[in-house]
């Protein structure tokens, strides 16, 4: 994170958001601005840049069109994301996360549009959807900080709909009062204390305030969290606070201060892929000494067809014909994956397990093709989507992993792919169309 270098400024400038809110708002109306700004070398907070002349960074090409410049920016952005994770690492597949939302008065600030609170809610919903998509066996609980209390908003649940429902009612979550980090973390810790050792315990705090009012010493809380191997990540909306930084540093989490709307989203979504398990951190932080690997007992349910006679389900007591039968106690549940309400067995279906496999067997990153000279048989169109490649201009070097020809080659099957397919294959499909694996 190159946030660090900037963050100390904001400690002194924390009054600025309210003062300069207006000017910044105007500047951020350009939709492309977030992206363009991130390109700029010296990154500034939204409120510091009263008017960023985002149009200065975009250069017209010979014909006066902006198309090329915009595409170039976006392509580079995408490539950068792909270049990062290449090595094989062991990841936590079964995750438990408590999302702590700041619901204090400071969330009503307007330095993020429309307000910090509204933006946080919106991103939180997107985050939950994406998180469950990538971590089908995970569970999320939601805790709010307001009026100096920790408030349970959503119970720990493996069903995205439940979590989204708890985040959907804006009126119920109306910010008020002061936040209390200690109370909220204690509450989150309590709801994760019973979890088995092989699952991860994570806390994600979205913190908009610059103060916390705690009933005791928060460093004690931090110590307990370190002992029980809870990983705390903080996304701050205002400025860096010493305690937030310490929370995430000591527990192996991530810390970031959001500079603008786009950066806020980036910080959140960085936490979506399953975290790598580092041996060092685990040894340092393992108070109990228990290894995190374990065998888990799981049940594979029988799916009842839509035409079966209706019966009551164990989870909601609704009369339904479709459902899944727990293989151990034969109770009927509505949806999987879940823990059986009667016997507590973890119920999953094989597609849920398969959904996690792509984290374990990723696609090799494609190489950017610099020139066409050594490829006699190279094709004129993308191997996957048959889009013709742009006419070759042979004056290119690979910059930031970006091919001047817009071609990316699989190291295994030596087929060429276009930029869009490159991103699509690595982000979504996780399977190379050329090699078929």
């Amino acid at each position: 994170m190159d946030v660090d270098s900037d963050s100390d400024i904001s400690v002194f400038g924390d009054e600025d958001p309210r003062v300069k809110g207006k000017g910044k708002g105007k500047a951020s109306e350009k939709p492309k601005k977030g992206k363009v700004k991130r390109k700029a070398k010296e990154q500034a907070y939204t409120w510091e840049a009263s008017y960023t002349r985002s149009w200065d960074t975009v250069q017209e090409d010979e014909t006066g069109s902006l198309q090329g410049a915009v595409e170039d920016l976006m392509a580079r952005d995408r490539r950068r994301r792909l270049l990062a994770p290449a090595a094989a690492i062991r990841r936590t597949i079964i995750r438990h996360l408590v999302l702590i939302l700041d619901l204090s008065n400071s969330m009503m600030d307007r330095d993020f549009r429309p307000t910090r609170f509204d933006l946080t809610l919106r991103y939180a919903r997107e985050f939950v959807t994406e998180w469950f998509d990538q971590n089908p066996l995970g569970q999320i609980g939601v805790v709010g900080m307001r009026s100096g209390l920790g408030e349970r908003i959503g119970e720990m649940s493996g069903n995205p709909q439940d979590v989204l429902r708890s985040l959907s009612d804006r009126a119920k979550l109306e910010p008020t009062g002061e936040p209390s980090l200690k109370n909220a973390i204690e509450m989150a810790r309590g709801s994760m204390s019973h979890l088995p050792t092989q699952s991860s315990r994570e806390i994600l705090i979205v913190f908009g305030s610059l103060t916390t009012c705690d009933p005791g010493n928060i460093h004690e809380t931090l110590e307990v969290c370190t002992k029980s191997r809870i990983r705390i990540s903080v996304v701050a909306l205002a400025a860096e606070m010493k305690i937030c930084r310490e929370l995430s540093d000591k527990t192996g989490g991530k810390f970031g201060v959001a500079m603008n709307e786009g950066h806020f989203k980036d910080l959140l979504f960085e936490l979506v892929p399953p975290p790598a398990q580092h041996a060092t951190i685990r040894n340092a932080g393992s108070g109990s000494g228990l290894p995190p690997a374990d065998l888990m007992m799981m049940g594979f349910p029988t799916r009842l067809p839509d035409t079966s006679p209706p019966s009551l389900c164990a989870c909601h007591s609704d009369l339904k014909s479709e459902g899944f039968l727990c293989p151990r106690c034969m109770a009927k549940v509505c949806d999987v994956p879940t823990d059986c309400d009667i016997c507590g067995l973890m119920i999953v279906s094989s597609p849920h397990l398969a959904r996690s496999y792509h984290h374990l067997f990723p696609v090799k990153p494609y190489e950017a093709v610099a020139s066409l000279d050594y490829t006699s048989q190279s094709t004129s169109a993308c191997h996957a989507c048959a889009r013709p490649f742009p006419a070759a201009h042979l004056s290119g070097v690979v910059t930031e992993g970006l091919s001047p020809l817009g071609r990316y080659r699989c190291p295994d099957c030596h087929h060429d792919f276009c930029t869009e397919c490159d991103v699509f294959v690595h982000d979504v499909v996780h399977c190379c169309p050329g090699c078929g694996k």
Partner: protein
Amino acid sequence: MDSEVDKPSHLSVILDLSPTQWYLSARATNPYPLTIGSFLSQLLAFLNAHIGTKNENTLAVFGAFPGKSVMLYTSTEALVDEPPPLDANSYPPFRMVDTTVTRQILRELDAIEPGDEPPCALVGALTKALCYINRITLPSTSSTNVAEGSTHLPDPRILILSVSPDLSSSYIPIMNAIFSAQKLKVTIDVCKIYGADTVFLQQAAHLTNGSYIYLERRDALLQYLIMSFLPPPLVRKVLTVPRQDKIDFRAACFCHKNIVDVGFVCSVCLSIFCQPVPVCSTCRTKFPIKALQRLKSACPSPAPAPPRPLANLNNAVPRTTEATNHSTPGLR
């Protein structure tokens, strides 16, 4: 409702063109033999019907050949160099589809060398179809957000005409393709023309809200195609298209290939075992002895289930796993 139904739709057809399977399908000993020739003529009629239903409808055809997947036709750009000569008696788009598809198939089939036939590259064709749909649903300047782009083109769908049996090594890629289809809101329809039911494609159709149809009367192929697969998914809600009801979602254990109801899963690599084991055979993770004892006491005495007809997960996870790189230190 009308406005939704009236929207143009996109269809990607994946043809499974394994010479061996088509030879088997054409044998006269079958109850309803179907040769590849008659299959193609019925297929082309179906494709023409799709193009003819609506002027804006788009079509792409992919072929899965042994060890190779090829795009045979798209309506967005010409794949063959010389367009077919105009014929006063045929509608040009129909003629374009017919000649392009047959010419491309002939070219690919001629290129197949005699000898051992590698399995059909169904996965390649499927991922290509997804990439193609991704490309046409996203305008070239749009963001990376897939969900936003899918509103531009309603109802993209993929129809797989399958004759080959399941390939156990393609389990993970096919599941990955299914999940990306879900993300792109693509419906996958499957028509099994010859051979036994494929579990993977059943799951594909089920998970993407498509329909899986096993062809009982192969001579009535065109009728099946037109009745079940021609209407876009929005219209199908009204039509009650036949759907698969029983899908096997149980898993097979990696150790004995038994189907298990209650299994034991390695927390590192998600391998499934039918009994508690001390060491994971896939990623070599050692499990704590305490947990083993606890699980053994909880374990119901496992009655050996009959082996699964189509080994589902058996070889799905490659043995050369990268998950081993960081085996657990501090574990004896």
